């Protein structure tokens, strides 16, 4: 079985977001970049499937050269090789086109990625890739088991979950608790240095969307504190002042 895991390189979840260049660029100063948390779940499950069934795991990132530390970490966690498409990943259709092009060349049985990236939160790339490949897509996937050419899947739906069965190949958007995040060990880190990382140039169309500028939310006003012994006053305030109940 051949598994492709697509990962994003994103600001750490604790990052305080700021912009530079007249609000046209993310201020990367002091920002730690990590593997997208959802992508990390996808990778962890792929490595478990590799350990169980002897699958091969390729990591794919659409990103510029500064994403390579994240790719190396994925290799250290257990992926066999990696591909980086040398382009800024800013438009869902464009990113999907890159992934689909690699997938067409190598025909994977399973294409896994996070349910969404935590920078743009679109949650669309997996579905577009699957559409381009003409195969089913499922997201967000909470449990995944493979037997032969059949996948048993639990997907979250609004207010619950459902159990699904589908034949490979599939594209899946993953989330917890599909697997526990893995931390690379020393041996993994050493071997990751020499695992193949191929860099390819992007193909396809111009981007269908571009970001003109960014903005930070206006700060909330000062918090109005209500003494605990007068807690009932809160309900009056929500009713008469905030008018939300």
């Amino acid at each position, binding site marked *: 079985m051949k598994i492709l895991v697509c990962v994003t390189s994103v600001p750490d*979840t*604790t990052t*305080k*977001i700021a*912009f530079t260049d007249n609000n046209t660029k993310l201020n990367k100063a002091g920002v730690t970049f990590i593997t997208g948390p*959802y992508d990390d779940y996808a990778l962890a499950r792929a490595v478990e499937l590799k350990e169980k069934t002897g699958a091969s795991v390729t990591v794919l990132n659409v990103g510029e050269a500064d994403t390579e530390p994240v790719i190396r970490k994925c290799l250290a966690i257990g992926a066999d090789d990696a591909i980086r498409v040398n382009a800024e990943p800013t438009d*869902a*259709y464009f990113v*999907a086109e890159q992934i689909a092009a690699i997938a067409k060349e190598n025909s994977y049985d399973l294409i896994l990625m996070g349910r969404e990236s*935590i920078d743009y939160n*679109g*949650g*669309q790339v*997996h*579905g*577009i*890739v*699957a*559409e*381009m490949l*003409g195969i089913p897509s*499922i*997201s967000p996937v*909470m449990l995944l088991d493979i037997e032969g050419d059949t996948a048993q899947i639990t997907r*979250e*739906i*609004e207010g*619950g*979950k*459902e*159990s*699904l*069965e*589908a*034949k490979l190949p599939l594209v899946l958007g993953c989330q*917890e608790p599909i697997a526990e995040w893995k931390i690379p060990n020393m041996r993994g880190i050493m071997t990751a240095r020499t695992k193949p990382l191929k860099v390819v140039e992007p193909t396809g169309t111009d981007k*269908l*969307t*571009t970001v*003109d*500028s*960014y*903005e*930070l*939310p206006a700060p909330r*006003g000062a*918090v*109005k504190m*209500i003494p*605990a012994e007068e*807690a*009932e006053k*809160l*309900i*009056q305030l*929500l*009713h008469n002042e*905030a008018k*939300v*109940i």
Partner: protein
Amino acid sequence: MSVLIFAELDEGKIKKSSQEAIFYGAKVAEMTGTSATAIIVGPADDAELASAGRFGATRVLHATDAKLTEPNGMAYATVVAAAVQQEGSKVIVLAKSSLADAMTARLAGKLKAGLAANVIELPNLSNGFVVKTSIYTGKAFAYNELKADTKILAIKKNTITPEEKDGTASVDPFTPALNEADFAISVKSTEKSSGDILLPEADLVVSAGRGLKGPENWEIVEDLANALHAATACSKPVSDLDWRPHSEHVGQTGIKISPNLYIACGISGAIQHLAGVNSSKVIVVINKDADAPFFKSADYGIVGDVFDVLPRLTKAVRAL
């Protein structure tokens, strides 16, 4: 050329978030000098379908093939793509949801559409087609220019407040050719809490964290939620500990919500939790620790014991 709105049903009724989408789509139609048509898939009665007119749709296309009774993102995308083609629509509007997410991506792939997710305002058409979206899990916004000929706008809850008016939409049956490959996934079982208010749809949310000390104490949270007709939610540790189902987990790696009111009980307010809820209009924090960081991001705060405060709030709500 009409603006096409994909309106979603829940148990035969147009979802509240989809009513917002219809109203939003009608506004875009007004701005672009065209009309708004809704495409609705699945069983619903004529009165319900025609009610799309109250939110500004002039027509409804209703697809009722028996194979479409169960939500199916891939099959729904095929239907909506056929409607786009029939109507010659250049702008497609829908409300973000788990079904809509699955549908939207396939549709964008089919139409080679410029796609904006988590749209939070009407578009600005003064220079191109620019929409404001929520990014970095609510920590920032982006102004996106949609350059493709066909545009898809997936709007976030509470983007717009629909003004209802008198009016009914005309309803036309819609029977496009279906694609067998869209039915390749078989649903073996579904677990869904029925009767409850769906968290992503809820206007009011009562949420609790580890401060509740154990799942057996959730009654006081549910009582307040019931009194308010609110949905219940929880923090990540609570869902990790299996005190509550994952479908209630709000935050960076859970559900992102933007209700009118979010009441956080016994949640300290880690930045990852805030990311999922900071688009809420009004935030109330109740925590016994006066130094809990969440108070800095709240509109109203009570430093107090949730076991004392929550039942008193419930009583006060019932007395309103």
